[in-house]
């Protein structure tokens, strides 16, 4: 009886494996979506956004309502997720072959996976830099979603990372905007004496540390070396700039945060709150957060200033590089409504909607040329976008530019560096191991 049960179990397991293997093949061989066809204005268009929660969620809801006024036969199914939840949602939908018609993406390895897997439609015919629609975007933002000379993404908004500072706190402490990394570190005790936490920092989720690290890597490691090191196939990770950057990051945590080795126990949003309530003098943040930082009662827009993380002396990388990248949307390569999806995204990125997106309360600086102006956006958002446009090179977020296994090793290493659980040398060694394993 027992042997019969085992035989049955083995047969079931074998059948299951065969069935699973039979499911293989995925969408790579799926027929290409005809994105340039005349759209049929009927049916349901599904869209997965990263705009869940206040103040962003009304943006796509309003867009959908406006679009339906012009095309009442079209139904729009919005799936709105947050920055954190969309990662799981996208992977679940991908694994179950249930991606919506239009879905959010980051740049770098994140988007590349969808392109490589045949899940993203080639949009070159409609959004290439020489097309009518393509010319409405900044070229760098289109290029961020380009792979092997083809254009896949619809960039919606730009982003960059800056040190936000409280001008009133700096004035009270008699501190000037630091021009070098050393000046930044030296300003911290003075700000602390004036009654402020110099830099608010919460690393509970791990990725905020990666944002510091990526900017410091861009300063300390030559750009060509960095690019090669992001790909496990060519990675060596032996440039001395990595160790320099890791040590500089540790210095910032030790000298400039009040939580120091306990920073991993603080939420990113708690740090944001400490800055916007006026308790902290600085906070390293994305352009997308600027309008939120001044939305409360503590920090006024007039007292809010920004500067790029100051460049360390004798840095061997690119001193004009800035961390950031646009975020955008892909069209499902298997979507039967690809042409309708393109029409909707053209509507979403027209001049009027681009300006609405760039203005408060949304404050998401559109990638559409001319949408971000001092009139349409807050002063800080406009200034941030100007600096992004002037940057010689945009360093894509460390957790999306490289493969997940390596990104995860950097994340654990950043946390260990903060607690003192690992030395910079050990962190780099663990990342090298992860990179070798991901080859």
């Amino acid at each position: 009886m027992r042997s019969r049960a085992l035989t049955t179990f083995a047969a079931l397991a074998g059948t299951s494996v065969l069935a699973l293997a039979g499911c293989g093949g995925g969408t790579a061989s799926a027929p290409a979506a005809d994105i340039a066809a005349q759209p049929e204005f009927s049916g349901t268009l599904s869209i997965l956004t990263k705009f869940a929660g206040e103040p962003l969620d009304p943006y796509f809801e309003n867009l959908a309502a406006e679009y339906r006024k012009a095309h009442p036969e079209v139904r729009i199914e919005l799936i709105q997720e947050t920055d954190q939840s969309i990662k799981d949602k996208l992977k679940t939908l991908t694994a179950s072959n249930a991606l919506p018609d239009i879905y959010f993406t980051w740049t770098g390895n994140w988007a590349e996976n969808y392109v490589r897997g045949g899940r993203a439609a080639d949009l070159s015919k409609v959004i290439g830099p020489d097309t009518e629609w393509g010319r409405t975007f900044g070229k760098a933002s289109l290029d961020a979603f380009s792979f092997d000379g083809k254009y896949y993404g619809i960039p919606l908004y730009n982003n960059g990372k800056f040190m936000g500072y409280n001008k009133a706190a700096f004035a009270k402490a008699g501190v000037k905007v630091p021009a070098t990394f050393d000046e930044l570190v030296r300003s911290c005790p003075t700000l602390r004496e004036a009654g402020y936490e110099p830099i608010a920092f919460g690393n509970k989720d791990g990725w905020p540390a990666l944002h510091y690290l990526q900017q410091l890597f861009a300063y300390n490691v030559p750009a060509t070396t960095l690019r090669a090191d992001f790909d496990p196939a060519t990675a060596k990770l032996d440039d001395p700039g990595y160790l320099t950057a890791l040590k500089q990051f540790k210095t910032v945590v030790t000298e400039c945060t009040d939580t120091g080795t306990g920073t991993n126990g603080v939420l990113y949003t708690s740090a944001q709150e400490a800055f916007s309530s006026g308790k902290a003098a600085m906070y390293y943040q994305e352009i997308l957060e600027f309008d939120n930082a001044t939305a409360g009662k503590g920090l006024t827009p007039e007292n809010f200033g920004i500067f790029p993380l100051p460049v360390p002396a004798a840095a061997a990388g690119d001193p004009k590089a800035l961390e950031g990248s646009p975020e955008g949307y892909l069209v499902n390569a298997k979507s039967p409504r690809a042409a309708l999806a393109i029409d909707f995204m053209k509507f979403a990125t027209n001049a009027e909607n681009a300006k609405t997106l760039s203005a408060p309360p949304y404050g998401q600086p559109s990638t559409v040329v001319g949408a971000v102006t001092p009139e349409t956006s807050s002063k800080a958002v406009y200034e941030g976008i100007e600096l992004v446009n002037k940057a010689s090179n945009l360093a894509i977020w460390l957790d999306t530019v490289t493969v997940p296994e390596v990104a995860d090793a950097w994340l654990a290493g950043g946390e260990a560096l903060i607690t003192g659980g690992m030395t910079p040398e050990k962190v780099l060694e663990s990342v090298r191991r992860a990179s070798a394993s991901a080859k």
Partner: protein
Amino acid sequence: MRAIVARSLGLAWVVPALALVGVFVYLPLVQNFGFSTLEWDIYSGSQEYIGFDNYAKLLDDPVFWSSLGNNLLYAVISIAFQVFGALLLAALIESIRGEGWRRSLRVIYFIPSAISLTVAGLLFYFLYEPNLGPINHLLEAAGLGQFAAAWLGQEGTAMPAIIAMSQWQGFGYSTLLFAVAIQRIPSEIYGAAAIDGVGPVGRFVHVTVPLVREMTGLMAIVTVSGSFQVFNEVMVMTGGGPNNSTQVLGTWLYRSGFVRNDFGYAAAIATVLFVITLGVAMAQLWVTRRRRVEW
């Protein structure tokens, strides 16, 4: 003939339930084992059969072993608090003479168990918060500021802090079950022991403990099994960090699949987890059969 018809009709009633259990419980188990033998690229959909490579990879993965270690630590501490501690507390409560006091204490101890683990995790996250959390403020107010810490932010304190929350949450439930088991013991046995000059400690050791051994065995196994299924509290409080120090098998499984895109490896971890919990469940069946107390 009538018996055969009756039996067939009986089977017909059972078939829908069997089908549901088969599709939603047993088929995923078999499928998971199938996934664990694959290298699966969710983006291209390609699935390559790699045999037991994912299981071999487990052996070389330090985070897998530290996760397993955290589950074991969870189990050991939970046994101490939720089995032996809860039994002691239940005996103390049941020895109180006033029925009103007994009822009140049972309710007080049970309340944390009525809170969901996710909510309890969030609550304790704020209690442990290094800047705003009341634990550090209380320590400072008591002149013990040197013991204040970033409880969830340090490798050395994060796992014990999560386990402590879990004990707080589960302690009352175990206590209530033990209280019920103690109430089932005939009072004549305690009376006879008292006449023989056995004191309260002796009555606990020689009467209560042996006569609740069925419940003790059951609770021990349920607690160990639960310790290997820990997920919510870790995800809410630390997400497995810092530096993977609070990963347990459940969270490492999640991270391997949903963050590192290694779904075949995640399925292998799930299979190991299944084997462990299945082993514990079999032990539970065996123990409860052997330790049945009858009077």
